[in-house]
């Protein structure tokens, strides 16, 4: 291309807005969104660890934030993002071997990852709350 900066009136190919939502497309987008969320969520892990290293006062402050209903909601969402990204990663591992590209398997893996991530999230919180006798 002689000059990439010259804008021509070219026909645009159809973009996401025009397609009917399909499970594999939604899973792909969610994989990226959860990845980005986990990226910024490392701040939470860093805050927790540095507060413990700092001492009881900082630990109490961070703990109060995490124990707040909003904090718990963030942690719940973080758990789901982690699980969803992990199950999405399992799909990619399968695809990396060259298998599972037929439409039926793609759809099945998509549904398995969304349902699996939800089930895993509920199970993790169920066990955690059960250990303290809260449910």
């Amino acid at each position, binding site marked *: 291309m002689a000059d990439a900066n010259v804008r021509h009136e070219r026909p645009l190919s159809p973009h996401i807005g025009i397609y009917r939502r399909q499970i594999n497309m939604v899973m792909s987008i969610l994989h*990226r969104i959860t*990845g*980005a969320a*986990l*990226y910024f969520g*490392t*701040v939470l*892990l*860093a805050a927790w*660890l*540095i507060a*413990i*290293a700092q001492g*009881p006062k900082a*630990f*109490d402050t961070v703990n109060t934030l*995490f*124990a707040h209903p909003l904090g718990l909601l963030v942690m719940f969402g973080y*758990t789901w993002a*982690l699980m969803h990204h*992990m199950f999405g*990663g399992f799909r*990619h*591992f399968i695809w*990396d071997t060259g298998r599972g590209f037929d439409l039926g398997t793609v759809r099945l893996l998509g549904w398995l990852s969304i349902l699996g991530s939800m089930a895993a999230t509920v199970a*993790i919180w169920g*066990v*955690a709350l059960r*250990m*303290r006798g809260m449910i």
Partner: protein
Amino acid sequence: MSTNLRPTASPTHAAIRTPLAKVRGLGSAKEGTDHFWKQRVTALANVPLTLFLVGLIARLAGSDYATVRATLQQPLIAILLLLLVLSGIHHMRMGMQTIIEDYVPREGRKLGLLMLNSFFAYSAGLTCIFAVLKLAFAAQ
């Protein structure tokens, strides 16, 4: 193998196949499949390490300071946390790099964001590592 790489009206598989000599150049970034491969290796490492972290936090949530501190001071737990941070930071830095390269076409802005990506990833990672080591090496 044909070395004729001129575009045809309807490129067949053979026509778009790259000669080995060209592949050996490892592409324009000279990295070959390095990024792809490291993303996969760190992803694999992240699976057990992440499950460990989830288990650890689920166990420690609501515990008092002394318990949490004593738990994180155990060598095995500290080592697993350090491994998770190392693997996780590289994985997320490479992932965000891909996102930036996909969505930011302007060269200057892209370069800036790629730098910020590295700064953020290594800052967050080193903060975690410092905290874990400080706890691990502190008096019991």
